[in-house]
């Protein structure tokens, strides 16, 4: 018998019992859709993280205090990273295009009648716009001189400027940040939220002002102004490893530690992306397994229904045998039915999985990325499930004795 005939017989067998066929497919549909949606969610998360890290700027080296090297109960040694370390890097290391340190705080910002609570105040350095790839829309950014002299000047994010000043000019106006009066010298160009941070509502001030006014540390005179992280932008990508080595040498000397026991770590974006990827990969494989189990359950559902179907249609099998259907004809008929159930279920599952992932992405704040490989894997697993779980019932049907089958009520 040719495959077109087998297909037709199987198709007719299924369409004769539409509701049941649909219910049987449901397991596969849910399984396939679950695989696609779950993988798309984790792929989305991964992409977001990678983008956030990339969004911080290009060719960045992150220098952090060496928490990773501390065992439990161990006290942090050394002085940690300071503003002075950052300055030293900028002055002494070649091939560095910018060094940025950040100090965050949250203050109330006032201008004439308008008052806004909990505005992010970002104390930073002059290289910030360059490293972060931000441009000035109006006025100018603060200078190194202003930074050194702790001049009370502020640059506003685009959104914040509009909220405070509306259509009026912001540059030249005085605002009150916390209790400190500051002159607005510039407004940033609007920028999409990269790095997961919306810089459009920030106030950017010289970090020196931040140290004295908002994050005052009484020991700063002795230890220097502590910073959590130093961002170093490297001019050429191929120089990154070399630059890291130089930074390590420099800071080891400054902190008076050996290269084997550094009290800080220098990582690149690639390192961070790699770490993130290994965690999300584990997460994704877990989700994949969960979804795979639901596919397995769908397969068992198919087997169950096929077994019922074989018993119920014993007489039909007998009739077919009596007119000349061979065991393999019967086997193929039922195997094709199972395969059709899983393939059609798989197709519907793929459609609803892609649709579901899109809806998820559109509704929630979760980002979803449908990967073709997950679609392919889910669909082919569905097909495999159909063959695997369809074989036993089909074989059972093929082995029926025609005399017994014809006698079956």
């Amino acid at each position, binding site marked *: *018998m*040719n495959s077109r*005939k087998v297909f037709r*017989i199987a198709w*007719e067998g299924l369409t*004769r019992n539409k509701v049941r066929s649909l219910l049987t497919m449901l397991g596969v549909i849910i399984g396939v859709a679950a695989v696609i949606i779950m993988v798309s969610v984790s792929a989305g998360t991964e992409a977001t993280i990678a983008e956030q890290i990339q969004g911080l700027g290009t060719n960045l080296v992150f220098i952090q205090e060496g928490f990773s090297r501390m065992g439990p109960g161990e006290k942090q040694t050394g002085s940690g990273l300071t503003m002075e370390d950052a300055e030293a890097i900028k002055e002494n290391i070649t091939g560095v295009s910018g060094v940025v340190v950040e100090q965050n705080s949250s203050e109330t910002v006032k201008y004439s009648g308008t008052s806004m609570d909990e505005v992010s105040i970002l104390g930073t350095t002059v290289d910030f716009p360059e490293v972060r790839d931000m441009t000035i829309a109006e006025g100018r950014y603060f200078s190194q001189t202003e930074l050194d002299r702790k001049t009370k000047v502020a640059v506003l994010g685009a959104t914040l400027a509009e909220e405070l000043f509306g259509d009026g000019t912001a540059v030249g106006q005085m605002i009150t940040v916390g209790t400190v009066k500051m002159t607005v010298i510039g407004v940033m160009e609007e920028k999409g939220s990269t790095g997961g941070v919306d810089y459009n509502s920030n106030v950017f001030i010289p970090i020196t002002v931040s140290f004295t006014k908002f994050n005052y540390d009484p020991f700063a005179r002795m230890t220097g102004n502590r910073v959590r992280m130093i961002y170093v932008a490297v001019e050429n990508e191929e120089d990154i490893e070399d630059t890291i080595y130089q930074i390590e040498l420099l800071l080891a000397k400054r902190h008076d530690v050996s290269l084997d026991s550094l009290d800080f770590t220098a990582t690149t974006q690639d390192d961070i992306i790699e770490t993130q990827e290994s965690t999300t990969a584990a997460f994704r494989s877990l989700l994949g397994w969960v979804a795979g189990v639901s596919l397995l359950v769908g397969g068992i559902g198919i087997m169950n229904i096929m077994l019922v179907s074989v018993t119920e249609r014993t*007489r*039909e099998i*007998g*009739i*077919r*045998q*009596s*007119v*000349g*259907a*061979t*065991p*393999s*004809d019967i086997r193929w008929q039922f195997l094709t039915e199972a395969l059709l159930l899983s393939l059609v279920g798989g197709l519907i599952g793929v459609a609803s999985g892609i649709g579901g992932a899109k809806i998820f992405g559109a509704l929630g704040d979760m980002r979803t990325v449908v990967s073709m490989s997950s679609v392919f894997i889910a669909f082919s697993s569905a097909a495999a499930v159909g063959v695997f779980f369809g074989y036993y019932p089909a074989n059972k049907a093929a082995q029926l004795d*025609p*005399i017994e089958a*014809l006698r079956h009520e």
Partner: protein
Amino acid sequence: MTKKTIIKILDLTKIYGLGDIQVRALDNVNLTVTEGEFVAIMGPSGSGKSTLMNILGCLDRPTEGKYYLAGEDVSELDKVQLATIRNKKLGFIFQSYNLLPRVSALENVMLPLLYDSMQDISGEEQHDRALKSLEAVGLAERVQHQPHELSGGQSQRVAIARALVNEPVLILADEPTGNLDTKSSVEILSILTKLHGEGRTIVMVTHEDDIASFAQRIIRFRDGRIDYDKPNGHKPVHLYKKEVDHEL
């Protein structure tokens, strides 16, 4: 011109059960049926006539002995080969029609052609042959009806059409009128008589003398052996004859 031998059975024995309890359903049966014969097989239940039908129909194999169907030894064939023989050479008519439910009369008749792996008959030809077959049993008007829309007599006529569609060398009818009222029985028997008239070979199991009287030869079974085997001396009984005349 000598007629072809359709059925040749030599020392056929069928034993059911294993070990101590063995039932000899057929015991050394010898039988020959030639082309164009209309044979009625009779006997009480348990006499072995169903077993014989199963073996004649290639649904079962004999324990011992030989069965030649149209010259071919089919007693040693495997399941697949038997299926092919059923498909090519045999036509079945069952007591309970055995039509596929929820499938049109036409498609039911096409069924044997669907399983013809040797010829791979085109869909169009399947359709034409099934239609011709249905016309032969007077059901050209009902090709698209499903079994539940047909009367018992009509259903059995669809079954006969199905038995004819593959041009079998032998038609096996197992109590073909067992589920039918008198009028429908007459319809069916008149069709069988007509087929016999066209030269077809028919073996029919029945336990009713009236039905058997339509056959040309009557074989009676008892305890797995042939009790008697003789030509039917009687004309079809009067009751039927009247209606048959009326019908034809």
